[in-house]
């Protein structure tokens, strides 16, 4: 079973690696942010799959934090301060 889970994780990992293309070519920050989002979501998948493989159930907490913090990152990306902030 582990090997199977691992191969699924490998596929997800390949997806992440492929996402690098989008990260590299952009062209807009939104695209890169999307790629980062993809890495987050796929990363959660990989982590969830790794948990049984490595026998570390606590990895699910990592996934939980990933999901919570993904929102923070996106929010930070889309917000801008009020005027008179050096820009």
């Amino acid at each position, binding site marked *: 079973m582990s090997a199977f889970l691992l191969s699924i994780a490998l596929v997800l990992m390949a997806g992440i690696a492929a996402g690098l293309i989008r990260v*590299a*070519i*952009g*062209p*807009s920050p939104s695209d890169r942010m999307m790629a980062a989002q993809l890495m987050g979501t796929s990363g959660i998948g990989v982590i969830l799959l790794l948990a049984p493989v490595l026998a570390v159930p606590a990895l699910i907490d990592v996934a*939980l934090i990933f999901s919570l913090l993904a929102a923070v990152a996106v929010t930070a990306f889309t917000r801008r301060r009020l005027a008179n902030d050096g820009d």
Partner: protein
Amino acid sequence: MYRHPVFAHPRAATLRAIGFALVWLILVGPDAASWIIGGPFVVAATLASLRLSKPRERNLSVSSLAGFIPYFLVESLRGGLDVAARVLLPRLRVQPGNQEYRVSLRSPEARLVFIDSISLLPGTLSADLRGDLVTVHALDVRTDVVEGLTTLERRVAALFGESLPPASDRTIARTTAGRSPADETSARETPSHPEGRP
């Protein structure tokens, strides 16, 4: 006179506290001692929640929820399949464009669920919300997105116990002409110019 939300809305406060306690239970599992930390943090979470979203008297309707979940899951799956089918076929089957839709839902929670759900439904993505106008980005402007949106809005309204005006008053305000994907690609998003502006 100012009343703390806990006292102003004891029912909402209790419900939310119970909800958070449940989440705590899910997170930690059955461990009585954990409530030493869990208690205060559930209280803190409840207080924060009450501060951040004003409790309203109308609340989640459980029966509608039972109907909404399967609907939501199925539509999400359809959405996923739809997009997968479009992108995995050798020839991209997309003709993106924006449409606008007047939303009648009032409460922020309902709007959040509505807006979020739009993005999970097949072919639509909520791109903006100005006043009551939702800008919906459609993957393929040739499909009819309005019908799906109307259905969704009705279900969300039911979920939050809101009543919607009659259908005739709240059809689409305006539909922007869908531009051809080729246009947009060449004009706006040129992959051949990695850093944006040609």
